[in-house]
C-alpha cells in the first residue's frame, strides 16, 4: 500500500490538487475564489502531463532510429516508455496559453459583474437578478 502511494506520488499530488480546485469551483460562493479554484484545477493537469514525461534512470534520447523511409516503421519506431518525452512539455505550453486566456476572460467577466451588482458573492448576485 505504501509502495503504491510513494511509487506514484506524482499522480497523488495531481489528484489532490485537482480535487482542491474542483471543490473551490463548486463549493465556494465567491466568484474570485471560484476562479482561483479553476486555475488550481488547470495547473494540476499541467503537472500531470509534465510528470508523465519524466523517467527515472536508463532513459535515452527520443531519436527515432531506422525511420528514414516514411510509413513502414511508424508504428513501433516510437517506444514511448524508454525516453524522457519532450512532447508533453510542448503540449503544456499550448495548454498554459489556453489557461491564461481562460483566466483573462473570466476576470474580465467578473469585473463586468462587479460593476453591475457591486458584489462578488454568488448569493447576493442571484438575489439581485431575481
Amino acid at each position, binding site marked *: 500500500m505504501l509502495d503504491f502511494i510513494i511509487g506514484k506520488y506524482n499522480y497523488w499530488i495531481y489528484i489532490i490538487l485537482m480535487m482542491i480546485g*474542483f471543490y473551490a*469551483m463548486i463549493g465556494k460562493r465567491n*466568484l474570485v475564489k*471560484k476562479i482561483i479554484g*479553476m486555475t488550481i*484545477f*488547470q495547473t494540476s*493537469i499541467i503537472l*500531470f*502531463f509534465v510528470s*508523465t514525461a519524466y523517467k527515472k534512470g536508463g532513459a535515452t534520447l527520443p531519436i527515432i532510429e531506422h525511420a528514414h523511409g*516514411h*510509413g513502414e516503421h*511508424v*508504428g513501433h519506431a*516510437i*517506444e*514511448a516508455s524508454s525516453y524522457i*518525452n519532450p*512532447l*508533453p512539455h510542448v*503540449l503544456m505550453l*499550448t*495548454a498554459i496559453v*489556453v489557461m491564461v*486566456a*481562460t483566466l483573462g*476572460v*473570466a476576470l*474580465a*467577466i*467578473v469585473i*463586468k*459583474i462587479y460593476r*453591475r451588482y457591486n458584489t462578488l458573492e454568488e448569493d447576493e*448576485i442571484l438575489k439581485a*437578478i431575481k
Partner: protein
Amino acid sequence: MTDQFPILIIIIPLLFAVITPLLGLWRENLCYPWVILSLALCMLCSIFVLGRVIDTGVIHYYLGGWAPPWGIELVIDHLNALMLVIISTTALLVAVYSKRSLEQELDSSIVYFYTIFLLQVTGFLGIVITGDMFNLYVFLEITALTGYALIAVGEDGAPFASFRYIIMGTVGACFYLLGVGYLYIATGSLNIADLSRLLPELYGSKVILVAFAFFFVGIAIKMALFPLHVWLPDAYTKAPSAASALIAPLMTKIAVYVMLRIMFTVFKPSLSIDMLPVTDIMIWLGIAAIVAGAVMALAQTDFKRMFCYIVVAEIGYMVGGTGIANSVAIKGVILHILNDAIMTLGMFVVAGIVYYQTKGHNLTDFKDLFKKMPYTMAAFVVIALSIIGVPPTCGFFSKWYLIQGAIIADCWAFVAALLLSSLINIILFFRIFEIGYGFSETHGHGNGHEEVLISEAPMSMLIPTIITALGIMLIGIYNQPIVNNIIQFAVPKL
C-alpha cells in the same frame, strides 16, 4: 490550388478575424460585408470539399508536409465534410442576419463582436476538420472562450450566465484534456488514425477505460447532456440574438460530432458497444434528457428559454440514438445533426426577430404577430412543424430513422420518450400559434376587427429566416439523396 482547400477552410475565417479590428479602425461599416465575404468564401470551400469527398473519398491534408503521427493532419471524410457545410452555411446565414439586431442590442462597437464571431467560426470548423486529439482540444477551447465572450455582451444578467458557463465549460475541457493525456501515456500518439490503430491491443487496460470515461463526461458537459445542462438555458437566453443564433445550433451539435468521433473512430465500436456498458447508460441518459427537456420546456413562460430546453431534449435524441448503436439509428443521429442544426437556427433566428420587434422574450410577446409579420411567422410555422416532426419537413425523417433503429433494438422506452416529446412539442408550438393569432383575445370583446399594421422584420433578418425555412423543406424532400450519397458512408462499420 484546390489541394489547399481543406486548410483554407480554417485559414480564411482566422485571417479575416485578425484583419477585422484593423478594418474597423478605418471604416466601421465595412466590417459587415467583410464578415459576409469571408464566410461566403469559407462556405464555397466547404461545399467544394464535400463534393470532392463524395467523388474521391477521404481527404488527408498534412500540415507543413509532416506525415502523421508526427505532424498534425486534417482528415475529411463524409461525416465531417457534411459538418463543415452545416457550420459554414449556418454561420453565413447568422452573419447576414446579425446586422440589425446587433445595432439594436449592443451598446459597444460591432467591430469586436464580429472579430470574436469569426474566431468562433474558426474554432467550430477546426474541431470538425482536425485529425489530431490535442489540436481538437485547442479548437474546443477557442470555441469555448469566444463563446463566453459573445454570451457576456448580452442583456442584463448575461455576464453571470457566462461566468457559470466558464466554470462548467472549463471542467469539461479539462476532462477532455485529461482523457488525451491518458491516451498519450498509453500509446505515445495523438493522431486519431494512429490511435485507432494502436488502441485495440490495450483495450483491457484500466488507463484506456479511465480515458474513455473522462472523454465522455467532458463532452457531455460541452453538449449539455441532461444532468449537466444547467449552464445552457441561462447562457443562451441572455446572449444577444445573433450570438445565440450562432452558438445554439452549432456548439451542441459539434459536441455530438466529437462524441461520435471518439466512440467510433478513436475507439473501435467493439470497445464502445461490446466491452463497456456505456451504450445502455447513453440510452437512459438520452431518455432522461428528452423527458426532462420536454417537461421543463412546458414550464417556461419565456420563449427563448423554452427553445433552450427544446435543444436539451434534442440532445437527448442524438445521445440516445448513438446509444442504440445500430446502423439505422446512427444514420438517424447523423441526419438529425443536420436537421437539428437548421431547426435550432430557425428557432433562434425567429426568437431574435420577435425580440427585435417587441423588445421582450415572453410568450405573450407573440400576440398578433401573425398579422404583423406574416412572412416571419409563416417561416416559423414550417420550423415548428419540423421540430414536431410533420412529414414533408426534415424533422420527420431523422425521427423516423431513430424510431426505426430503436424498434430494431427493442428499446421501447426510447420510442415512448421520442413520441412523448413530439406530443409535448405540439403543445408548445400550438400554444405560441394561439397567442400569435390572438384567438382568445378576439373572442373576448366582440368587435375583434382592430386594424393591425403589418410591420415585417427588416430584409436582412427576414431573408435568412426564409432561407432556413426553405432549407428545412428541401432537406426533407431530398433526404434520400443526402442519406444515400453522404450519410450512408459516414455511418461507422458496426
